[in-house]
Every structure is written in C-alpha cells, then in structure tokens.
C-alpha cells in the first residue's frame, strides 16, 4: 500500500470527511462566483445611474446634441435608432423566418442544405466590425447606397439574421409531428400546413427570437461606426408621413443619421469630462431599452415553456 492510502476505518472516515469538506467549499465557491457576476451587473447599473444623475431630465430626450454638455440631448439618436430598427426588422424578420421555415419544413438532406447550415453557423460567428466592413465596401461604395439609414438597417439586418433563423428553427422543431401529419392526412399541401398550423403554433418562439435579435441590434455600434454614422446630427430625418400625396415618403431611408450607442461612444471619447455624465445618461437609456426587450423575451420564453409543460 502506498503512503497515504487509508488502511484503517479511521483513516477512511477522515478521507471521506475531507472530501465532504471540499465539496462544501465548492458549493460556496460556485454560489460566490454566480452572485459575484450578478453583483458586478448591479454595480454597473448603479454606477451608470449615479453618473447620469445630473442629466436624467426630460431635456435628455428632447434636445439635439450640442457642444454644451448640459444641453446635449438624444433626440436625433433616439429617432435614428427607431428608424434603423424598422429597416433592420423589415430585413431580418421575413428573411429569417422564411429561411428557418425552409430549413425545417422543406429542405432535404443534401449537400445544399448542409452548405446553407454551415453558412448560417459561420455568419453567426462573423465579428460585428467585419459586417461594417462589408457594408462599407459593398453597400456604400459598390452598390452606391450611401451612408444612410437604409445601409445601416441592411447591415444590422444581416448581422442579426442568424439569431432569427436559429430561433425560428427551434420554435418550429418544437411543434409536434403529429400536428403536421394530421394536416397532411386531411389533404393539405405543405404550404397550407406551414402557414395555417406550424407558424401559428411556433409564433411565440419566433417572436422571442425576433425580440432578442432586435435587442442585439439596438446595442450594436461597430458596424455603424464603420459605415460612417455621424455623431453630430442636429436634425431629424424627413418624416415618413407627409401631408401631400403620395402621403408616404421613403426619403428618410437615404438620410444621414446617428444612433444611441454611437452617441454614447462619441460622448465618452471626448476629452471634456462634463460629457461623461451625458455618456452615462445615454447608457442608462440604452440599457433600459435593451434590458426591457431582453426581459420581455425571456418572460415570453418562460410562459411558453410553462404552456407546453402543462
């Protein structure tokens, strides 16, 4: 027997006691780490709010950016974020749901399907700055789309596309096969089954994915910096609704713009320390938006799980 190998009952008991102690220590360590991470999140939010206090006034939302920190506001940034999100959603949601539906309901196991799946996995791994490069080289210069809301929306739409696709696939996969078989047995075509049965059943899951995708897009900065979202925008893009025919205008798509995270980035990079409060305030607004969206998506997912579990 090697040195240290327990040979008596007492030694064995000591060894077991020691192991139990290590086990308990690990329990403490794991709990500590998890709560530490949450604690850091809490510190982040608290610090941000504290730093933003002087600027958390209505003027923050109603003012344009200004050289004077006390007056600088987020009006153009907020409007810009909304408009860019409209385009992003218009790109990512239909495309993502369609691609997801195809892969789950129609695709056969051939080389093409595998190629598409590998592609989507790769797209999901592309760093966000590279999307910006693509947008700059291809959309802005090659296609002459210009540095505007349309380009921004397209870029972010492609960026979050994998999120929508994956969420759609998972939601559709969760629909029981028996439901589909019943529909086919009634003589429905595949499209009828998909449109009338599969999509409504998986809508909540798909919706969750879309919310998460948009929440991600709201916070994305790098690609928009690359295509040159300007940071001193003291105007709003043209309104989409006009009072003269044809009553709907798409001019806003070709307008220059700024978004919330870029405004934050700009303010935090300034040498004047008074702008840091503005940056913090922008951070608070941004955080509020993204956390609300994420929380609602998670709540939706939770309610969905309960519905299927019961």
């Amino acid at each position, binding site marked *: *027997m*090697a*040195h*240290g*190998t*327990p*040979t*008596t*009952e*007492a*030694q*064995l*008991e000591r*060894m*077991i006691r020691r*192991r*139990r102690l290590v086990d308990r220590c690990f329990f403490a360590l794991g709990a500590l780490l998890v709560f530490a991470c949450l604690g850091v999140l809490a510190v982040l939010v608290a610090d941000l709010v504290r730093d933003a206090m002087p600027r958390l006034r209505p003027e923050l939302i109603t003012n344009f950016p200004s050289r004077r920190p006390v007056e600088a506001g987020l009006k153009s940034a907020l409007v810009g974020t909304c408009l860019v999100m409209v385009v992003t959603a218009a790109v990512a949601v239909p495309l993502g749901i369609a691609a997801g539906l195809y892969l789950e309901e129609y695709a056969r196991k051939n080389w093409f399907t595998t190629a598409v799946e590998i592609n989507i996995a790769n797209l999901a791994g592309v760093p966000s700055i590279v999307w910006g490069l693509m947008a700059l080289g291809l959309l802005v210069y090659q296609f002459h789309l210009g540095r505007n809301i349309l380009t921004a929306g397209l870029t972010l739409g492609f960026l979050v596309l994998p999120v929508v696709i994956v969420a759609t696939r998972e939601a559709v996969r969760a629909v029981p096969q028996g439901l589909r078989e019943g529909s086919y047995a009634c003589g429905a075509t595949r499209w009828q089954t998909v449109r009338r049965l599969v999509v409504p059943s998986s809508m909540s899951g798909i919706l969750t994915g879309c919310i998460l995708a948009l929440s991600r897009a709201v916070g994305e900065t790098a690609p928009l910096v690359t295509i040159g979202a300007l940071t001193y925008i003291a105007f709003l893009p043209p309104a989409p609704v006009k009072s003269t025919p044809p009553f709907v205008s798409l001019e806003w798509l070709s307008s220059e713009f700024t978004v919330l995270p870029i405004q934050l980035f700009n303010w935090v990079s300034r040498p004047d320390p008074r702008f840091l409060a503005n940056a913090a305030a922008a951070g608070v607004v941004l955080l509020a938006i993204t956390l609300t969206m994420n929380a609602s998506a998670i709540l939706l997912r939770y309610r969905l799980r309960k519905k299927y579990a019961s």
Partner: protein
Amino acid sequence: MATASLQRPSPLAVQASHAGAHAGPTLPGVPSSSPDSRASLPVTDADLPEFGAPPRPPEVKAEAVGLRFSYGTHEVLKGISMPFHKDRITALIGPSGCGKSTLLRCFNRMHDLYPGTKYGGQLLLYPDKLDICRKGVDAIRLRLRINMVFQKPNPFPKSVFENVAFGPRLSGERSRTAIEGQVEEALKGAALWDEVKDRLSHPAYKLSGGQQQRLCIARALASNPEIILFDEPTSALDPVATLKIEELIIGLAERTTIVIVTHNMHQAARISHTTAFMYLGELVEFGKTAQVFQNPKVELTQKYVTGHFG
C-alpha cells in the same frame, strides 16, 4: 465503530470455511406482513444447489426488519422482513411496481439522491449490525461497502482502465501498481480481461452492450464490496450476453453476497439460492428458490410463477 482492518480478504479469493455455523437471527416481536412468509431459518446442506461452494449453513449478511419506504406521501415498501444470506444469491421477483427495485436501492441509499424520501424500520448490515436506514449513516462509506450494477450499462466516459480504477481511487488507493493489480483482478473476475487486456486505454463506450455490462460488473468488483446489488442487469442485453452474465454472477456468489432484482423469473429460478416474491410493496413469500417455484406456499406466488399475471 470498531476499527476493523480494511484489508478484508478479497472476495476473489476463495474463503476458508467459517468457524461454526450461525443461525440466522430471528427477532421476536418483529411484525411481518404475512405469517407464512416470515424470514425463514437456514436451509440445510442437502437443499443447496450444486454451486461448488463448500457446504456450510449460510450466515446472514443483511436483514430487513419491518423496512418501510415512502416517496412523499406514497408508501412503496410496507414493512419488509427478510434475511439476505452471506455469499448467496437472493433474488427479488414480482410484477412491476411491487417495490423490488426500491428495496434494492435502500441498501446503498440511492434514494438519498432524490428529495422527499423517507425510510422506516431497519435494514441491518452484519457483522457490525449497522442500520443502513438510520439517519446520519454515512452514505459514502456505505457505498464503498455495497456496490450496484444497473439495468442499462452505464460506463463512464473514460477508458476501460479508468472505469474500473474509479472504485479503488475512491477508496483512496494511490499506488499505480496496486490499482493496476486491482483492475486486472476485477476484469478477470468479470470474465472480461482476455477481451480487453490490449484495449485498456480505449474508451469504454466502444465495447459492445454485453461487454459494457461486464465492465460495470468489474467496476463494482474492483472496490471489494461486501454486497453487490444487481438491478435487472440483463434486461437490456441479448440472450448470449445474458447467459454469460448469469454464469458470471453464479461464479461471483462464491465470495460475495448478491441481491438481484429481476423481471425474468426464469432467470431467478436459474441462478438464485433464495427468492423473495413481492407484490404491491409487501413481501408475499420467501424461501429457497426451488421451493418458491415448485411448491409455493401462497396462492398469489403460485399464480405469479405460473404466469397468470405479471
């Protein structure tokens, strides 16, 4: 507890005969579920099947005394009293839901892994008369003395060698040579050595189903347990593998106490010395296997062994 030496003779070495015969203890005043099936007294030499063991009256290794067990409010074992003879095979048979697996799992306190379980009565382990079901019993120490082989082979995601070495390492063995020796002994005892001696570092999951189960048996053997529990060990295997394992178990019984739960009563008839028939959480009949199958004392037993229900 007395500091008994842990260097008990390996079960793989045939033991010298005991000094004197021990009568199985009968405890007066212990309630039993049915008068006819009360834990019976030793069988005589003439009744022993031809297993090659030296003829001696069996001593009792463990004894259930009014053992009760409940899951939440649902009472699964309703007062079981029976002996488990040393170095013999005791089979537990009965229809689904009768509590045989539950009884088996009381031995190594597997129920502790799940919340809401409650023991009642006693399950005594000899020679130190330890009540397994008592609160405060060290489950880890217990599981080093009593090992289990499960229904579906569950080798760890490690090599063949590491699987079998798991037990000795848990017992605190550190010397590489000692571990290698124990692994080789255990694999020989499980009739697997010749098949895997060149593949000891290969992953365990590459073995066939029957080989994996024998690996699990070797794993159980490696820590020199006093009792080995088998929970329907061959129900997931083909007939050829089943036969090999039955032969193995019969061989093991010469030096270890074995309790086996089986759905297949023919298996019980083939390999066990004593059989206990359970129904709905109660012990209906207990006795020598030959007697239980050919001359059952209780009508219910008769019905079960002749296949009227199951």
